[in-house]
């Protein structure tokens, strides 16, 4: 009854709204406005039953609370908390407190005491667990405060012996996150660490036993609840991550946990054992049931290997992954992971791998024609056969055969990591990796090809292995084939038969999939480079020359013949005797190919032939440096110009631009830098021309032509600045500032021109305002760079800035005009590495004369294959544009899955675009080109990208647009009218 009355009192109170005798907590709030807390309070008071209260709280949780009122809200919540009988409501309140203490700029220390007080009265285990969770949040918010941490840890210790697993879980989590990671000072009794009361209650009378978090947590490794065990291991791992050195004594316990009944415990234990093996790799542990001892890392390696055949695939994945991180393991143990002794009816049997190797060694290859060819030979000593592989035996054999592809991928990755650190292991695992090329899941196949490529520096393929590898060349998946080509580029083979085999298979591949042309040629280039001596004996056969007879000249357009030539020429590069074997037409073909496929055919020193200048092999590595020097010199020459109005400045610019452009063509390494500088200089040149003194003094109507020229220049400058900013990678902030500076200049020029041509002030006002805003944002963005820009246009503008904002548009224009003309030339500092984004469309080639026919109104898919270099984030920026003869165009955004990344800074776009058009009378060409989309807000976004997605509206003044890059390709298409 009393409760009911009380409720009514509150109800009435809430209706009256803010009585003067508002109770104490509300006063403490110092509310300046009727904030959420008040509303919450009223809501909570209104709630007649727990369900309602819960509803209010849930509703409340959705709204955000500002930092200054958090404390008040928490008080109200706590007040209600003590009154509330229902567990679920109290639980929600506890979780809300945790949520609130995460509010930015709020110091949760102020609510710590109140939160801790709740522990005194709380009976419900669930609520206790939630409260501990809240403490965890508070604790992580205040990582520096030692006192807070100690208080929280004390609470955790006190509740560690709770009967509910959730509470113990949270306590352990708390200990793991906040427990002291310094070495326990308390042993000598004077450390800051408060003496910790032993885990369980009886310790009280038995005296205070001082223990550190570590041993305490390890007690819970044997808890009866698997969730608590997991939490204990995780807490320990957490402590390790925070820098605590875990004691070795835990090792035995951790190993026992590997045989736990529950998978999450085993999975965590695998990590624990691994951590220990990394901490104490060299310490010695005894092998049970024998007198021998092994290194700890070996022991743990064996134990984790055992887990690869665990019942739960989660554990198997974990174990396989972990194996890859144990590089210190001794080779003997490592090699056991690939060991699987075969037997059949108690007779020892050789594995297929061993058999293949033996056959290879004996000189005879591939039989398997006879039945019982693999018949077991010697009899196995029954006592010696160890069926359940103790230790590391066959871990990878199992892992690679696992049912779940996640495990297989993890095992392949682990193999790769281990093989890279040990050459002999790499040799051994080769067979297994090659076997994986036959996996049922493409991802696994691809991964194993990549892995083999990574370790291929360590190995030489045998003929039979190569045979298996090459079989995959017929795979219908393009990714697989290209990965394999990439692999073959890096492979060493042992005999000339191997080269022949590889060439044969590659040619077969070429006929089956003609689109692989480039990739195959490239592959053969490397193959030739790597094995000149192996190619040499094959040359007569390959070029089908005959000692006496002339053989017919092969067709030069045959891709297969080109492939052979690429192989031979590349081998000939480092094998001077080879050229003697060439016949006449081979030399002719050489010169042709050297011109048309210069990236595949190296310069050869041919006897008795004059070498074309510039193609000579002498132009070696030194030239890059000299070109670099030349670039520097040109730029420093430019820097002598102080003012663009100087006489002769224009000529110098003109010359330098020309020089740089030529340099870019000659030296591909410096193309980026040279192009970049040339473009920049061109902008300056344009500006200079536009500002020529004579013309500006004339009256406007007299120089219409000049005006048009200047307007065009300003427009072009703007375009060029966008190219400068977004097409080149490797720019530093300094260069970006310079580019923006040019852009400002261009805009100022535009403004001045507008002012001259247009009459009336109104349109000018808005344009001026916009310009001023841009100046401001420039200042904001490049505060750091401003000192360098002192003498420049912006520097001068900023000096005048207080005046600028006040003055009228007319005056502003005048100021701009003079500053533009007076400002000095801003020197370009080249960054270390500038690369120009480029794109080449490989497919379609644009050579086809057969139009693509389709019915008008329907769509036709056009396959596009392009390589992109030095494009950052192509998934978002690269687009395909299709331009129809009637001027119509479409921009198509490729799917993220269409981009592949075969190497650093390289991307490959393989996509389909859909074309459609109304009927044409005859076939006509359309243009397909790649666009690089940019948005100037990108810079700002990079800074904000961490924050929430709400701020996605483009920043003020953001411009978006596209830059065409790469050559467009023309495609013949022919939409036919539909037949009725």
């Amino acid at each position, binding site marked *: 009854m009393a409760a009911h009355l009380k409720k009514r009192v509150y109800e009435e109170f809430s209706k009256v709204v803010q009585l003067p005798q508002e109770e104490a907590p509300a006063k403490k709030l110092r509310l300046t406005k009727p904030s959420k807390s008040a509303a919450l309070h009223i809501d909570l008071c209104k709630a007649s039953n727990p369900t309602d209260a819960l509803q209010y709280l849930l509703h409340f949780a959705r709204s955000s609370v500002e930092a200054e009122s958090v404390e008040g809200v928490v008080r109200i919540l706590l007040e209600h908390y003590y009154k509330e009988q229902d567990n679920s409501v109290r639980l929600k309140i506890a979780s809300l407190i945790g949520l609130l203490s995460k509010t930015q700029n709020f110091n949760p220390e102020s609510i710590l005491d109140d939160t801790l007080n709740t522990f005194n009265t709380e009976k419900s285990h669930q609520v206790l667990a939630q409260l501990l969770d809240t403490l965890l949040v508070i604790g992580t918010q205040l990582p520096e405060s030692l006192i807070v941490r100690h208080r929280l840890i004390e609470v955790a210790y006190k509740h560690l012996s709770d009967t509910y697993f959730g509470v113990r879980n949270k306590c352990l989590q708390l200990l793991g996150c906040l427990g002291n990671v310094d070495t326990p000072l308390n042993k000598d009794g004077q450390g800051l660490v408060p003496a910790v009361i032993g885990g369980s209650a009886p310790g009280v009378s038995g005296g205070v036993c001082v223990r550190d978090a570590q041993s305490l947590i390890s007690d819970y490794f044997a808890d009866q609840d698997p969730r608590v065990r997991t939490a204990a291991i995780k807490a320990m791992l957490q402590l390790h991550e925070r820098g605590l050195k875990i004691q070795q004594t835990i090792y035995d316990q951790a190993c026992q946990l590997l045989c736990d009944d529950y998978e999450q415990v085993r999975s965590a234990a695998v990590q624990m054992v691994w951590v220990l093996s990394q901490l104490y790799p060299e310490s010695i542990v005894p092998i049970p049931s024998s007198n021998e001892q092994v290194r700890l890392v070996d022991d743990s390696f064996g134990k984790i290997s055992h887990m690869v055949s665990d019942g739960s695939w989660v554990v198997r994945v974990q174990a396989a992954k972990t194996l890859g991180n144990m590089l210190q393991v001794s080779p003997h143990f490592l090699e056991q992971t690939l060991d*699987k002794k075969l037997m059949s009816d108690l007779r020892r049997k050789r594995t297929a791998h061993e058999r293949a190797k033996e056959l290879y060694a004996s000189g005879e290859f591939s039989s398997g*024609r006879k039945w019982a060819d693999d018949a077991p030979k010697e009899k196995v000593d029954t006592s010696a056969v160890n069926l359940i592989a103790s230790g590391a035996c066959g871990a990878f054999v199992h892992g690679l055969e696992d049912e779940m592809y996640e495990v297989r991928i993890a095992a392949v990755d682990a193999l790769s990591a281990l093989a890279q650190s040990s050459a002999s292991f790499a040799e051994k695992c080769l067979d297994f990796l090659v*076997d994986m090329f036959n996996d049922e899941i493409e991802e696994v196949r691809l991964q194993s090809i990549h892995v083999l490529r990574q370790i291929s520096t360590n190995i030489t393929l045998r003929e039979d292995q190569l045979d298996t590898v090459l079989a995959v060349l017929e795979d219908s998946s393009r990714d697989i084939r290209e990965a394999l080509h990439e692999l073959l580029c890096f492979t060493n083979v042992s005999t000339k038969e191997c080269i022949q085999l590889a060439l044969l298979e590659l040619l077969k591949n070429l006929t089956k999939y003609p689109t692989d042309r480039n990739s195959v040629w490239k592959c053969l280039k490397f193959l030739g480079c790597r094995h000149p001596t192996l190619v040499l004996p094959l040359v007569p056969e390959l070029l089908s020359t005959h000692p006496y007879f002339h053989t017919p000249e092969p067709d030069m357009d045959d891709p297969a013949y080109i492939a052979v030539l690429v192989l031979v020429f590349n081998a000939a590069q480092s094998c001077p005797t080879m050229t003697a074997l060439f016949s006449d037409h081979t030399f002719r073909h050489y010169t042709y190919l050297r011109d048309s496929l210069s990236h595949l055919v190296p310069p050869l020193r041919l006897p008795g032939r004059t070498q074309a200048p510039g193609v000579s092999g002498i132009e070696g590595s030194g030239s890059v440096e000299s070109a670099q020097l030349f670039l520097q010199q040109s730029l420093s020459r430019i820097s002598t110009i102080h003012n663009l109005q100087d006489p002769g400045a224009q000529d110098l610019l003109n010359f330098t631009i020309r020089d740089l452009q030529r340099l870019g063509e000659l030296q591909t390494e410096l193309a980026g830098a040279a192009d970049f500088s040339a473009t920049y200089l061109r902008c300056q040149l344009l500006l200079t021309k536009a500002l020529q003194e004579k013309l500006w003094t004339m009256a406007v109507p007299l120089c219409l032509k000049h005006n048009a020229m200047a307007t065009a220049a300003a427009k072009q400058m703007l375009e060029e600045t966008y190219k400068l900013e977004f097409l080149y990678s490797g720019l530093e902030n300094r260069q970006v500032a310079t580019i923006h500076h040019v852009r400002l200049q261009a805009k100022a020029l535009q403004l001045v021109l507008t002012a001259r041509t247009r009459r009336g002030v109104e349109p000018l006002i808005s344009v001026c305002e916009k310009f001023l805003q841009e100046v401001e944002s420039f200042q904001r963005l490049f505060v750091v760079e401003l000192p360098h820009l002192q003498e420049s246009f912006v520097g001068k503008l900023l000096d005048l800035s207080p005046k600028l904002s006040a003055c009228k548009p007319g005056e502003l224009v005048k100021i701009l005009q003079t500053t533009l003309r007076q400002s000095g030339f801003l020197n370009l500092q080249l960054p270390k590495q500038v690369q120009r984004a480029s794109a080449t469309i490989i497919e379609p080639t644009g050579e086809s004369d057969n139009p693509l026919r389709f019915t008008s109104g329907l769509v036709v898919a056009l396959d596009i294959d392009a390589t992109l270099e030095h494009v950052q984030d192509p998934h978002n920026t690269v687009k395909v544009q299709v331009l129809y003869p009637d001027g119509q165009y479409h921009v198509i955004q490729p799917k993220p899955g269409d981009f592949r990344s075969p190497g650093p800074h390289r991307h490959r776009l393989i996509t389909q675009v859909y074309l459609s058009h109304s009927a044409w009378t005859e076939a006509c060409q359309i243009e397909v080109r790649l666009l690089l989309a940019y948005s100037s807000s990108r810079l700002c976004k990079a800074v904000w990208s961490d924050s929430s997605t709400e701020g996605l509206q483009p920043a003020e003044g953001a411009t978006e647009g596209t830059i065409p890059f790469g050559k467009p390709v023309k495609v013949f298409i022919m939409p036919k009218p539909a037949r009725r």
Partner: protein
Amino acid sequence: MPEIKVTPLGAGQDVGRSCILVSIGGKNIMLDCGMHMGFNDDRRFPDFSYITQQGRLTEFLDCVIISHFHLDHCGALPYMSEMVGYDGPIYMTHPTKAICPILLEDFRKITVDKKGETNFFTSQMIKDCMKKVVPLNLHQTVQVDDELEIKAYYAGHVLGAAMVQIKVGSESVVYTGDYNMTPDRHLGAAWIDKCRPDILISESTYATTIRDSKRCRERDFLKKVHETVERGGKVLIPVFALGRAQELCILLETFWERMNMKAPIYFSTGLTEKANHYYKLFITWTNQKIRKTFVQRNMFEFKHIKAFDRSYADNPGPMVVFATPGMLHAGQSLQIFKKWAGNEKNMIIMPGYCVQGTIGHKILNGQKKLEMENRQTLEVKLQVEYMSFSAHADAKGIMQLIRMAEPRNMLLVHGEAKKMEFLKDKIEQEFTINCFMPANGETTTVITNPSVPVDISLNLLKREMALGGPLPDPKKPRTMHGTLIMKDNSLRLVTPEQALKELGLNEHQLRFTCRVQYRKTEFTIFIVFSSSYLVKAWAVLKGYTIQHLPDGTVMVESIVIKVSSSAEEPNTKVLLLSWSYQDEDLGSFLSTLLKKGLPSGLSSM
């Protein structure tokens, strides 16, 4: 002592006609009911007269469980249920239930229609028998009756193969049927949780074999087929309709797909189409890859594999044909073989074992000239290859399963005695558990130590909790006082008071009394020492409450010590001791103490 008895009626130290009787916790279960391929007489079926000489089996068996659809595991089912007579439930998984009758019908046709046997089960009997089948789902616990429950685990091997856990109370047995621990192209690997059964009954077909990785085998197979087809040759693969055939089909199908091959692949029709239909249906029973991709495309909907027609065999150009039967002894596979044998470009791949006497066996042994019917000879020019694709666990796989399940005892069936011997030794050595390998008709008895569940009253538990520490420590046993009531097949542990109340009995106090006589002199010594000294002595037994009552009696807990002098013998004093049975230990200690005088050790204190 409770015990579990296992008696193999078939498959004891033998392969074929699997049939194992298990009696556990008073329940009798028959595991599998197979036939023997090698015999055509009575030995074909298990000897059901072992169970009962006449009459039906229903009253002797609680249930029958079939692990998978192979005839050596289910071939005798209609015979047992319809001809011998069994009406109880028969458990099998859904795929087994679907495919089993097809195979049985086929088996019946061959025996009755082809070989002309009489006294064999009829189609109707198969139908009737299948009506008694109760389907099982994986990991579903099925209550056969109140006490007996069974649960199926995935076994690999063939579609729908299951391992079964049979559980009565806390006693349990796991029967594996046939299983495979390495996944293949269409099925996953067997899996079981750590159920720690009392007995694990495992097959042991490959007890002495450790197999090479399946990848090598697959690669070899594909390479051989690929090479022959590229040469323009024809490949014949004789298979049995179900099981391996599907694996090979998938293998070739994906290879064709991957390598963009064009040569046709044919599958001789018949049983297979029906079976493939079921493979399509029971996608959940296949491996990860098929399960994950079936939404885009069901792997069993073959793109490259088409139905075979007799006339195709004469078509020119390369082709691959799967044909039944597997041992090349009759039927379509033999007909095709005859046509193709003369060309050395062609190839035959035998994917399985061939029984002696069949053509398959002959050509595998390298015979180049075969004598056919009506005295013709056939020259074998085509290449003959042997590939072993078997879906049984090898020795390592068996050990792995043992490690997964952690059984207390091991029992091997479905294997040859000699090979079993080896594995048995290994198991005993590695796991230090008992391993049995009974022959047919031989009974293995395993004594179990089942835990008996007892309901404890909450009051009692709380009272004990209050006395002891805060947490029950699972590692340490604790004694408690209570009354065990066995009533209506249930056991309850309650407080003595409650027990008395329930039984309507009065509480009786049981006290032991004893008298100790002292001469006066002795007594005075005693008196002198009594209060101070004895108390001190008792202090040794610390923790006991000692009270001095006004009339001179001393109470230690419930023990009363009273001094009285008798009228007849004034010289003697009598010490009366009395204690209740709860304090028996303390009471007897005190009485000996008083009788013998004070131990010298104490007096010095």
